[in-house]
């Protein structure tokens, strides 16, 4: 009895899970594996269009004979690279007409023209012509003919499905792609973005955890950058930072903080003279990191605030009795209470910032030293139109990501052991 019950339970569970699992599998897991496949192929953006046989139908009347009509089909292979095999053609005609001198590749039967065009090479073009004549000598209705659309079909090789593999993409990724530079930029962006957002998150949480007028309001405001749409925020920042008409530069110029407008998003290096040393600051990258911090510190704030509010009040009261100052309270009560949250946050944010695409794409498009790995995926795949290369970079990202996750879960496991 209990055996059958548990069987029923199992079956129910699988039925309930199946739709979600299938969907997630096909949209998330399948592409990750497909990436591996594509990354070993030489595929361009233009190759992924399946070649189609196409026909444009033009209907023309013939002078002095209203019972005859000429149809021209402009046939072509839509692909410039691939052949199409076994092209079949079908079109309807009105009743009571018959074709004159029908092409030998075609047959006419019960108002339908069927043709077998055989193989079309890449870039194939042909003007195919049919003359129709009304059997009763009546005028042929042009509109009716136009309303029939020819149907074409054919077979072709799919470049994605054949088994030609190459290591070219990976060679390019590692040796011709300034890979080290790319990795370092990604690392700077990820690391400083994460640290910055956590530091500001702690500050903000510490702030809101105190009692003051308008505290709930403050909490909502602090989350605005995180809930707002990236597109809107990125373009607003772009306007704000514009070197000529941007508000920030004009304000700084107005108050004589700077003498020359700064191109905060378009300048790769800013040289700062620091006690006689020339320091090179990566300006655009720094700006992008600041945007990142601005947008994601609310998340750290939310996490840390939740933790802070769970810290028992008695701890602080005891510290007051012992005569501890605010700094000491922060150091010996608050900080130890939030280290666990901070380490989890650090790892989660690290992984996510590592993959961030939209923010940089919208702000700089990857120019002036802000090209990170995710931006490179887009660039390779859609700007340079090399799908295979894009996939190879994706694979590198996935591998690095798996490494981070491995470390993350190891640390998480160790933490669980400790407690």
């Amino acid at each position: 009895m209990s055996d059958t019950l548990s069987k029923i339970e199992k079956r129910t569970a699988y039925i309930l899970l199946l739709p979600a699992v299938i969907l997630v599998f096909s949209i998330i897991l399948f592409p990750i594996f497909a990436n591996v496949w594509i990354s070993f192929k030489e595929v361009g953006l233009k190759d992924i269009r399946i070649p189609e046989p196409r026909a444009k139908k033009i209907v023309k009347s013939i002078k002095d004979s209203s019972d005859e009509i000429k149809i021209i089909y402009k046939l072509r292979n839509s692909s410039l690279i691939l052949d199409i095999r076994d092209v079949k053609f079908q079109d309807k005609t009105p009743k009571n007409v018959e074709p004159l001198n029908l092409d030998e590749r075609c047959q006419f039967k019960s108002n339908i023209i069927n043709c077998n065009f055989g193989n079309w090479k890449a870039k194939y073009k042909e003007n195919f012509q049919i003359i129709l004549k009304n059997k009763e000598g009546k005028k042929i209705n042009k509109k009716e003919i136009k309303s029939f659309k020819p149907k074409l079909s054919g077979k072709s090789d799919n470049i994605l499905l054949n088994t030609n593999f190459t290591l070219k993409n990976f060679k390019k990724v590692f040796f011709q792609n300034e890979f080290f530079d790319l990795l370092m930029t990604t690392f700077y962006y990820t690391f400083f973005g994460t640290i910055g957002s956590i530091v500001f998150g702690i500050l903000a949480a510490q702030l809101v955890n105190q009692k003051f007028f308008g505290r709930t309001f403050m909490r909502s405001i602090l989350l605005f950058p995180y809930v707002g749409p990236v597109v809107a925020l990125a373009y607003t920042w772009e306007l704000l930072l514009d070197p000529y008409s941007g508000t920030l530069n004009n304000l700084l110029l107005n108050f004589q903080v700077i003498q020359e407008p700064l191109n905060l998003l378009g300048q790769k290096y800013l040289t700062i003279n620091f006690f006689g040393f020339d320091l090179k600051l990566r300006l655009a990258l720094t700006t992008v990191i600041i945007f990142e911090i601005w947008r994601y510190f609310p998340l750290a704030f939310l996490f840390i605030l939740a933790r802070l509010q769970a810290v028992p009040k008695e701890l602080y009261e005891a510290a007051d009795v012992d005569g501890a100052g605010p700094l000491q309270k922060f150091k010996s009560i608050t900080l130890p209470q939030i280290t666990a949250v901070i380490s989890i946050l650090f790892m989660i944010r690290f992984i996510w910032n590592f993959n961030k695409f939209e923010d940089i794409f919208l702000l700089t498009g990857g120019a002036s030293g802000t090209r990170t790995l995710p931006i490179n995926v887009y660039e390779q795949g859609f700007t340079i139109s090399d799908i295979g290369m894009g996939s190879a970079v994706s694979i590198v990202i996935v591998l690095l990501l798996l490494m981070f996750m491995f470390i993350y879960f190891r640390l998480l496991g160790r933490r669980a052991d400790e407690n």
Partner: protein
Amino acid sequence: MKIKSLILYCLISSIFLFSLVSIWKVLSTLQGIELKNLNFVIILTLGIAISLINLIIGDKFHKALKSIIFAILFTFVDGYLVQLMPIWYNVGIFGILIFYSFKIDKYNQKNLDLDHSSQTVLFEFLTLFGIVLFSFVILFPFYMMIVTSFKTQAALLINPLDFSINFAQDIKELFKSYFVIFDTYKFGRYILISTFVSVGTVIITLIFAIPAAYAVARLNFFGKNFLSTSILIIYMFPAIVLVIPLYTVFSQLGLRNNVGGLLIVYTATTLPVAIYMLQGYFKSIPKELEEAAIMDKLNWFGIIIKIILPLSIPAISSVALYVFMIAWNEFLFSLMFLDNPNSFTLSRAIQYLSGDAETPRQYLMAGSVVVTIPVLFIFVYFEKYLVSGLTAGSVKG
């Protein structure tokens, strides 16, 4: 009185005053007032003087009287420095000084003498400083977005610092950018598409996620642990590594430029977090309720509809709002999958608009306001639900 505390108090309070006054000056500059100098040294000196006088006077005067005297003094000096400012500017300075005097009023010779007084001063002013600074830094871009959308190209070119809005003008002139984006750029259509996609994603996600989450939370089956860990791992995989294969497959299947294709992808990417959030909540529902239902010969469908759903309205709303927000804000997939202006979502439409260098920026900002307002409105209105959604789903971002 400790010298260290005294110096710290004077310095940090006057720096705080300076920052308040500076923010007010920046905002005034953006209303078209010509201010060229923040007068750092003078305002700092004034601030130090006021805080010292405050200590010396102590409780001899009433708090309000003291504040008004300080405010009048400061406003007079500042007004003399910058000269011929409109009355509202001076009123603002006056207000800031009243606020400031109230804040420093609680410091007197006695409490600067206490243990840790320098730290207390530091912390209290840093808090004030933080509140002012955080609010300014966060709200300023939003303020700029809204104001720019009401300006004209010519006005922005003549003086990029003049953010003042002329409310006296015709309403059609004032809202011109909005009329243009709705008439010329078909933003009405994009709002509909975005709403359709987001609401559709929410509905489909819930339909898929509720049964799955129920199974994970309640039923025993082979591979359960594996499934719940993989939900989290899958959730960590970023969109950027899915883009190329999905693009190729969707192109070949003809699902690009198709809102349906977008719906499938959004649903799949939000499903893991929805399941994760819901199963956590389902586990907290007492099992006895379901056992009673099984006695009444309800099948799983009945249990979900009649028992689980009514009890988990809060969790379901927070999942729904969170998913709505993700779908509404989503950009990468809409960039990849939509090329045809007839099927753009709002985010994609704004990006398309900005691609044309000729597009005046007030149109861009009007579009940005249109895409931002609904999401902020929902956030403020349903904050309680959304915050719990954000915390649970915040592995993603």
